[in-house]
């Protein structure tokens, strides 16, 4: 048994995929020249006023219902006040005591069964504006900073989980599932490199000391730039906290919540200056914005707009399509467009397992090799479905499947045209019978061997048959030969 249990809660900031910022019409496009996507509103000019972006509200609402959150009848906006050069108004417009959604949950599971399927509760999800970016340029001890305000005012949804995760693996699964969900409903591109998804982790330990449960002080870990980094940071932090507890015996409540930054290169968390932590944000309702109430119709419309969610699709792939949990996961993890592709192909093929095999093995391999998405894949879903259907009906011999697939891929042909170009035709049964008859006549020894009980001797005939007619189906040739010999 482990010496302790790791308790993990995650705060995820997701940039919503709106064209314009939360309170003005500036573009949210990433990568523009610094300070080119600004206006009096987002740089906090005197006299400017915020106006809520309806699209951001909608995307936030969609996310909230997808996370099974309750939508309170009224939500309002508050000012979170602190001084920082990348915060031009001296406050961030956020939500304090009346968030737009709360009390949701997200189910996580592991197809490799390393942890049991569980629900991670979502405490709340609220909308807020992003700050700008300070670029520090420290020359010879003189700290000089420049500021890019392009990002200022970009809409963020902060999704706060309850401390329901018990391992770095579970935390990783939560992030993977959250990201998958968000990309499925199309509310965010979740690109961590561009900062559209940011994660902070709250971690502490429950240590069992002779039947007594001891909690260590909670630490908030920041600066994690990938999901892998989150896993590593949590693992490191759990070990560190256990060591500190052994040395000092410090318990929860002995000291204020500490913030530590993850140093990915060194693989350690480091304490940040306590001065920066203990701020009083003096939250109060923003008098420039009016409270919003979502009607039941709006909430229903948001639910209806979601489409099938990953968890539902995974389930139906297993129960309706008969796929394994593993295959279902592989497919769903590829995203909504691939699932659409798969489902369209299955409709044509009438063979879910067959389509699944070709998609998970060959299609994904080709996409990976060419570093492309399914949108640009040269075999359409209908073609692939037709291709799988032809194999299932026997029109296309299984052994020639790969050749036909490659021809379809390279030349952009339909399954029929590819088969034609390779000279693959279904051989008529009577034609096959006369071919077999002539082979038996020419090979009396083999006939004798089979009659003497050596059935495998017929294999030599299959090779000859393929030489005479490459379209001859080996299994059919074998069966016809055996039948004819039996009649002789």
């Amino acid at each position, binding site marked *: 048994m482990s010496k302790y249990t790791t308790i993990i809660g995650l705060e995820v900031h997701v940039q919503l995929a709106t064209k314009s910022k939360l309170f003005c019409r500036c573009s949210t496009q990433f990568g523009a020249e610094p300070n080119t996507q600004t206006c*009096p509103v987002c*740089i*906090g*000019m*005197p*006299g*400017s*006023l*915020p*106006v*809520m972006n309806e699209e951001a509200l909608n995307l936030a609402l969609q996310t909230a219902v997808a996370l099974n959150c309750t939508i309170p009848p009224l939500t309002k906006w508050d*000012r979170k*006040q602190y*001084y920082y*050069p990348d915060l*031009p*108004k*001296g*406050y961030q417009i956020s939500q304090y005591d009346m968030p737009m959604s709360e009390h949701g949950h997200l189910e996580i599971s592991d197809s490799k069964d390393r942890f049991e399927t569980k629900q991670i509760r979502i405490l709340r999800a609220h909308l807020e504006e992003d700050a700008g970016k300070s670029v520090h340029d420290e020359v010879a001890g003189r*700290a000089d900073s420049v*500021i890019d305000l392009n990002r200022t005012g970009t809409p963020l949804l902060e999704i706060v989980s309850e401390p329901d995760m018990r391992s770095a693996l579970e935390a990783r699964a939560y992030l993977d599932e959250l990201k998958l969900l968000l990309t499925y409903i199309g509310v965010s591109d979740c690109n961590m490199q561009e900062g559209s998804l940011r994660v902070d982790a709250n971690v502490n330990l429950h240590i069992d000391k002779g039947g007594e449960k001891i909690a260590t002080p909670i630490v908030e870990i920041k600066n994690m730039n990938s999901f892998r980094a989150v896993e590593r940071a949590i693992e490191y932090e759990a070990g560190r906290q256990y060591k500190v507890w052994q040395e000092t015996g410090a318990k929860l409540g002995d000291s204020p919540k500490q913030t530590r930054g993850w140093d990915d290169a060194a693989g350690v968390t480091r304490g940040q200056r306590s001065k920066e932590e203990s701020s*009083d944000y*003096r939250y*109060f309702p923003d*008098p*420039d*914005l*009016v409270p919003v109430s979502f009607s039941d119709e709006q909430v229903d419309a948001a639910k209806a707009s979601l489409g099938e969610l990953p968890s539902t699709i995974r389930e139906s792939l297993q129960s309706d399509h008969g796929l394994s949990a593993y295959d279902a996961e592989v497919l769903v993890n590829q995203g909504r467009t691939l699932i659409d592709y798969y489902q369209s192909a299955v409709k044509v093929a009438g063979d879910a397992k067959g389509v699944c095999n070709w998609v998970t093995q060959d299609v994904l391999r080709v996409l990976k090799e060419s570093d492309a998405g399914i949108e640009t894949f040269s075999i359409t879903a209908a073609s692939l479905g037709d291709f799988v259907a032809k194999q299932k009906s026997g029109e296309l011999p299984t052994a020639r499947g790969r050749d036909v697939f490659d021809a379809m891929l390279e030349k952009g042909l339909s399954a029929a045209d590819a088969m034609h170009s390779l000279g693959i035709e279904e051989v008529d049964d009577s034609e096959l019978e006369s071919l077999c008859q002539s082979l038996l006549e020419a090979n009396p020894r083999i006939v004798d061997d089979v009659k003497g009980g050596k059935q495998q001797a017929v294999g030599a005939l299959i090779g000859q048959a393929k030489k005479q007619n490459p379209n001859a189906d080996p299994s059919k040739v074998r069966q016809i030969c055996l039948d004819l010999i039996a009649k002789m």
Partner: protein
Amino acid sequence: MSLIELSAAEQSRKLAAGEISSVELVQAYLDRIEKYDGSVGAFLRYDTGRAIAAAKEIDKRRAAGETLGPLAGIPVAVKDILAERGQRTSCASKMLEEFHAPYDATVIARLKATDAVLIGRTNMDEFAMGGSTENSAFQTTQNPWNLKCSPGGSSGGAAAAVAADFAPLSIGTDTGGSIRQPAGFCGIVGFKPTYGRVSRFGLVAFASSLDQVGPLARSVEDIALLYSVIAGHDPQDSTSLDKPIEFATPIDKPLEGLKIGVVAEHFAEGLDSEVESAVREAFATYESLGAKLVEVSLPHSKYAVATYYVIAPCEASSNLARYDGVHYGYRSDQAKLAAELAAERAALEEAGERGAAEDLDTPLVRMYRKSRSEAFGPEVKRRIMLGTYALSAGYYDAYYLKALQVRRLIRQDYDKAFAEVDVIAGPVTPTPPFELGSLVDDPLAMYLVDLYTVSANLTGIPALSLPCGASKSGLPIGLQLQAKPLAEETLLRAGHMYQSATDWHTRRPPL
């Protein structure tokens, strides 16, 4: 009768009829400004060349037969707190002394669209905080009726400009009485519309939930003219009301059976006897016009000033956080600042005070500190500190939240009263204009001048201040009329009724 003695409405008619030109009209006002503003100090800035050029352009367009806006060719003075593209918008603060707004406030855009001639920018208390215009970082404004007296504030320049005939119309802002009180002190009309009627976009915020832009003029008729131009829904202001503003009936139609509420609490201790008798005389005038006086009670009004001086500073402390020297506005000399820090550090280290040296400001924090302490005046600092304190953890519930609760109670008082009466009438201020310098060292006494005006801001209702008398020493006394939300029409008709029967608004200061 000289041009400047005409009302803006009459000027507009004569301009439209081609009897006068805008250049003539603007020049007449500019002549007065040149002659008298040296002693009044109403304007922070005015640009003779620009005003005449604008007037010429309008005359030309009129001659060409173009359809022009209702204020075409008429001078309008603007309080220096509304953003105007390319122009300085200083809020009478050293902080924004060199700030040129990159955009037009909605009110400015509407004035431009209606072809008004923006004649100059008027003085005010710094960031609209004050009741005497003495808190301007740049100059004092004198009351045209007595240059030793304050014109009131914070829109003191706006009121003095109209009283001194520097412009027939001017734009002010009212957060706790900042239009009505100076209008009362200067013997003119000031109007604070219902909160949300006039867009706040481009109005540099003092207290966002209380701030409202409004007109100042000599007559209620002119007030209605300017109000109809600046009011209306603005999608750029989320708190702007999407309600039509057209008046159903002309304001010169008297109100039959008008019920006027007289508030018992208004006539308590602290009310100057001259003000009281002038206001009571106005009541009598209304009675003679057929109005009925009804006694009403506003029991929570005694908490209005205290409530106001919690809520307004709270919002101000937040709204003024942006003036930190980083992105625009005043920034303390950085070289001096760095040298100062280095010297302090060296001294502490020399004295062996390593801990204290460690605790010294970072250069950034020192820049914030210095920029703000050097560029804000004492009243602005006082309110930022009050507000920051009241919003701090542990005090929020006792101050800010409590104030919001009282604010609701005050509104309920008004709702009850307006169930019985059409308008509530009373004094604008407890006293006639006070002498410049007499209250500067007593902020509490200065705050009490707002006694009768802050409730309209706390409740969002429209309120009008109009001249109704004079003290023995010849200083103006104002009458305040308040109505329920959106009842601007009632208010303006009631005001016009009074002015049709009296001549206080036609009196001019002896400059």
